[in-house]
Structures are given as structure tokens and as C-alpha cells.
């Protein structure tokens, strides 16, 4: 059985999973130095989203999906997993393994996701629990190390950016942090209380804020705005006790963990909620993951698609989530009439 603590940890990792590669640079481009204020407001909006999800799901026990629900959930899972995989593949093939074919990078990640999710959600949640102290340690060291380098002048002028830009950042923050929580709500919810679920979300969001602060405070928004991956470039500034440098590769492993957990949950949802029949899932889940691998590699090698997803994936996710929740509400109304 999944414990309350494991639910919190899963929620924590899911909150962070979609931020790599798209979230930070898109928000900085939209709202400049107001990104900090807008992202805090985005957390509040995201909290409202997750409250709404929880209220809808609480009424259903167990969760039975019809064809429309499954199609919409499948589309959500594909977009979420694809976002995670192609962002991680782009990061690894741009900064670490430049000559390694992207297909190798993505395929080994999907193999790990498949093997770990095959064991069932209990084992997977245990893996998340084991990885949590390492993730927390990395976040803690990053936070402490950047503080001496922060210049308060870089956070000004405040509330000088356009209102549409600030609103866009609020939506980006809310959607990229809150929408993956839908995956968690499809799990058996005997022990999943709103408290566990929301604490994980808030802690995950705070960890994102703890990275936005040094990105703006150390780089300044004119520089942070032009970087494609400011969350990686800021790690290059890490210098522990004036002695240890070039630690960016170690500290960026926290994103690999985030994407791994996100991918595992997507694989579980496909296996248990979309296919449902174990005899079919045994064959379809590996095929699904192979398909996702090819899709992520295809996307990575076509820059117009990357740019389209970079600019619009938060909107696509919002629309799909809205349609999915609407279909659940309508299904409930239909079954009660």
C-alpha cells in the first residue's frame, strides 16, 4: 500500500517534472523581473486547480473511465510524457552527450521507466521515497550556495512589465505545476487525502521558486531572458566553498529524477487506467513507450515543432485538462440522471 508520505513525495516530483526546458525561460521572457511575483500568484492559481480536481475525483470511488475520458486522458499522458522526454533529451544532447544519438538517450530513459513502473505503483512510490533525500539535498545545497551571489537590484523594477505578460506567467506556472497532479489522482485513493496531495504540491512549487530567485538575482533578467535553459546555466555558477566548481552535471540529476517519476506515473496510468486489462497492457505498454521514444526523438530533431511546443504546450495542457474534467463531470451527471 502506498503510504501518506509516499503520496507527498510523488506529488512533489510531479509538480517539478514539466518545468525543465520550457517553464523557466518562457516565464522569464513573458514577465522579466516580475516573474517572481507572477509565479507566486501562479502557485495560488495552481492550488485552486488541484482543489477542483480533488473535489471532482472525491465523488468517484472507484474511478471508472468511459471511452471519451480515456481518449482525453491518453492525450494528456502523451503530451506530458512527450514534454518531459524531449526536454530531457534536448538537455542531455546539448550539454552532456553531444555526439551520442538522441535515440539512445531517450530509449534508455524509457526502458528505465518501463521496468520500474512494471512493478506496480507501490514499488514505484517506494523508489520515489528513496530518491527524495537526494533531491532535497541537491535543492538545499543549491539554495544555500546561490544566496551570497544574489544582487537585490536585479529584482527591480517591479510591476513594470505588461499585464498580459504577467498573466501569461501565472498561467504557465499554474498549468505546468498543477496539471501533472491529475496523474496522481488516478491512483487508488484510500489513503490519498487532500492534505498529502497539497503539501507535496506546495513543496514542489516552493522548490521551483527557490530556483527562480537565484536565476533572476544572480543573472539579472536581461541575461536570464535570453538563455534557452537558464535553470542549467545558473548551475554553472555554483562554486562550493570557493573550491568545488563545474558541479552543474551533478546538480542537474535532480531533473532526471523528476522526469523519471513523471514518466513512471504516465506509464502506470496508461497501464492501469487506460488499458485496464492486464493481458492487453502487457503488450501495449511497451509499445506505447516505444512510440513515445520515437515521438520524443522526432520532436527533438524538428525545431519548428520544438518551438511550437515551447510556446504553446502549457495552453494545450490547459485545454486538454479542462476537456477531461468536463467529460468527467458530464459523465457523472449522465449517470445520475
Amino acid at each position, binding site marked *: 500500500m502506498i503510504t501518506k508520505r509516499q503520496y507527498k513525495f510523488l506529488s512533489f516530483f510531479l509538480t517539478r517534472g514539466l518545468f525543465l526546458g520550457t517553464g523557466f525561460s518562457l516565464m522569464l521572457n513573458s514577465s522579466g523581473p516580475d516573474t517572481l511575483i507572477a509565479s507566486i500568484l501562479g502557485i495560488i492559481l495552481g492550488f485552486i486547480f488541484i482543489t477542483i480536481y480533488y473535489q471532482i475525483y472525491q465523488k468517484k470511488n472507484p474511478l471508472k473511465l468511459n471511452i471519451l475520458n480515456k481518449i482525453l486522458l491518453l492525450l494528456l499522458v502523451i503530451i506530458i510524457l512527450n514534454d518531459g522526454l524531449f526536454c530531457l533529451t534536448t538537455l542531455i544532447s*546539448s*550539454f*552532456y*552527450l*553531444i*555526439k*551520442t544519438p538522441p535515440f*539512445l538517450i531517450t530509449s*534508455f530513459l524509457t*526502458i528505465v521507466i518501463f*521496468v520500474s513502473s512494471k512493478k506496480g505503483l507501490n514499488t514505484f512510490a517506494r523508489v520515489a521515497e528513496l530518491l527524495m533525500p537526494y533531491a532535497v539535498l541537491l535543492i538545499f545545497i543549491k539554495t544555500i550556495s546561490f544566496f551570497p*551571489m544574489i*544582487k537585490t*537590484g536585479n529584482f*527591480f*523594477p517591479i510591476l*513594470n512589465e505588461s499585464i498580459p505578460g504577467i498573466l501569461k506567467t501565472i498561467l504557465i506556472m499554474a498549468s505546468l505545476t498543477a496539471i501533472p497532479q491529475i496523474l496522481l489522482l488516478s491512483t487508488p485513493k484510500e489513503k490519498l487525502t487532500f492534505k498529502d496531495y497539497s503539501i507535496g504540491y506546495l513543496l514542489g512549487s516552493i522548490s521551483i521558486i527557490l530556483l527562480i530567485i537565484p536565476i533572476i538575482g*544572480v*543573472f*539579472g533578467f*536581461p*541575461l536570464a531572458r*535570453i538563455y534557452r535553459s537558464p535553470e542549467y*546555466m545558473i548551475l*554553472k*555558477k555554483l*562554486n562550493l566553498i570557493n573550491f568545488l566548481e*563545474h558541479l552543474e552535471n551533478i546538480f542537474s540529476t535532480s531533473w532526471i529524477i523528476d522526469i523519471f517519476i513523471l514518466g513512471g506515473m504516465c506509464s502506470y496510468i496508461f497501464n492501469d487506467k487506460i488499458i485496464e486489462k492486464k493481458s492487453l497492457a502487457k503488450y501495449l505498454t511497451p509499445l506505447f513507450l516505444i512510440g513515445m521514444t520515437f515521438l520524443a526523438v522526432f520532436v527533438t530533431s524538428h525545431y519548428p515543432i520544438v518551438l511550437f511546443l515551447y510556446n504553446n504546450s502549457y495552453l494545450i495542457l490547459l485545454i486538454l485538462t479542462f476537456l477531461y474534467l468536463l467529460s468527467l463531470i458530464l459523465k457523472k451527471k449522465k449517470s445520475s440522471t
Partner: protein
Amino acid sequence: MKKIILIFLLLLTTGCYDFKELNSLAIIEAIGVDYQDDEYIVTFEILNDKKLENTNIDNSRKTTLVTTKDKKFVKAFEDAIKATPKDAYFYQLKLLLITEDLASHGIEDITDYLIRLHKVNKSLYMVMVDDTTIPDLLALNIDNEPVISTAILDLISKNPKLSPVNTSDSFDLMLNTILKKGSDIAIPSVKPENDTIALSTTKLFNDYHYTGSLTEEETKTYFLLKDSVYDIYYEDGPNTIAIYDNKVSYDYDNDTITITFKAEGSIKTIDEKYDLRNSNTYISLSKEYSNLIKEDILSLIKASKENNSDFLGLGTLVYNKTPKSYYDGCGFAKKIVVKANINVNRNGLVYEVVK
């Protein structure tokens, strides 16, 4: 089956695909860029290893220089990479050396290219070279300093008294200063002197272009405002004090920029007319040096205005507080008030003047 998968994963996922032997790398410590006769001249300083030392290159040198030139910076840079004996490795890059000719032409081309390149370490420092060419400087033979770029780096960043650069002057953060409204950059310069390398004056920029330099006195004042110093000497006739524990704050309110400078001072030499057992001596010395430093700061601001280079970031103060009233050069148009407070509170080991 699990063991086979595990072995398969271990063999293929440990990053061996991108593995590079250390011996196959040409570790580049410094890049030099000059601009002469409409051409960019790019120089790489490459660390020698044993293999290179076994070639016909002079065995006493620890570095090798590669120089190329082209009308376009990108082409000159790529040609230099091709001319490098092994696989060019830029992650240890520490210095970007430029000349006055390049700086006058503009550094936007090289800045745009280097910030975009993923393989270049962005925490390098930009330094101007005075009175010589970059290859000549990098080819100097200095005792106890086999690698010239390391000698320059130690000079600018590891000086115990004052460091012309700190981590906030790295290349990428310097670009942020250029991109920011109301700020310009000021970089240190070095020159050859008496068979070694010495610090020269600070060079000023407006946007991406070199506009002038500070005198030695102005450079000293600039360092006082920029960062913590230790034991920087200030002379006034027969008296000399050492400044330490300096703090500066900038404020903008009601169309007035206020610069408040505070520091401690310790007496190094003193005229015999002063009585060091009398507290009034310290009060009068504090007042005297406070006025001296205040005048120096005002003259530094005047130099900043004359060279049209807002390296103190006065315009940014205005922009951060009232962005709608900002315009280029507005920092100089505001009333500037300087408050300097030097507290002379140490006299060394003796109370008497032994002359």
C-alpha cells in the same frame, strides 16, 4: 535475462560514446581577439602536454599559441579551432584578452558568438591588453609563471589588497550589465612591465564600444566603490592612511542620487605635528580624508560623464525606481550627492612619530 539487460545498459549508458581521452584534448586557457586592417585576429593559448613537448615546439614553454585572422570573427575562430593540434577544449577557458582597436570597433560580434557557444566556459574574464600585442604578451617569459593567462588571472582576481574583478565580473554577468538599462562595463587592463605583467588602468565602455580609460587615481577610487579592499593607501602630503572595511550604498530619491561611502582607516605615516594620544587628531584626520575621498568620488563621476560610460550604474538606479522616467544618460542629469565617512581609528604599534 535481468543480468543481460543490466550488462547491456551498463555498457551503453555510462557516457562512453562521448568519451574523450585527456591526451587528445587541447586545453585552451585564454583567447585573444584583436582587430587590425578590417580583420579579426584570434589567438588561442593552449596548455602543452608531454606529447607537444616532444615535438619541434620550444620545450621550455608550457603553452602553445595558435593565431588566425579573417574578416569575420566566426571564421577566424573556427580557423583557429582547426589549426589547434588536438580537439579544442574550452571548458577551462579563463580569460578573454582584447585590444583597444577591437574594443573601439565594438565587441558585440564576439560577445554574441561566445555567449551562444555551449562549449565555452562563460565564467571567464575579459581583460584589455595595453602597450603590446596579445601574442607578444602571451609569449612573455616570466620567472615562476609558466602560463601567462594564469599570471594575469592571479593579478586581477587573487590580489589580497584589492581584486579588480570578482565573480560578478565574469563574461556572462558582464553581458547582463551591458544589456541592462543604465549601466555600462568597465574592465581591467594589463601591460608588460619590467619583464613581468602589471595592472594598467580601467577601461570604460559605452554599450559595446570602448570610450576611454580612467587614470590611476580614478581607478583606485573606482575599486573603492566597487568591492571590498584591504590596506589601500591614501596619501595627503606627509600623511598616509590605509583604507579597509569599505562599504558603499547608492540611493535615488526626489531626483537626487546619494552615494554614501564608509570605510575604516589606519595610519601608516603621519606628520610629527600630530599627537596620536589626542582623540582630536583622529577626528581631524577622519574629516580630512573624508573630504579627500569625497572629492575623488566626484572626480570619478565627472570622468564617467566625460567618457559617456555609466559604469557606476547611476542610470540603473533611476530605472529601477522610476522606469517610466528613464532615458539614456539620465543618471548623469540627476543631482548627485556624495557622503564620505572615513573613520581613522588605528595608529599602528606606536603612539609617537619616530623621525
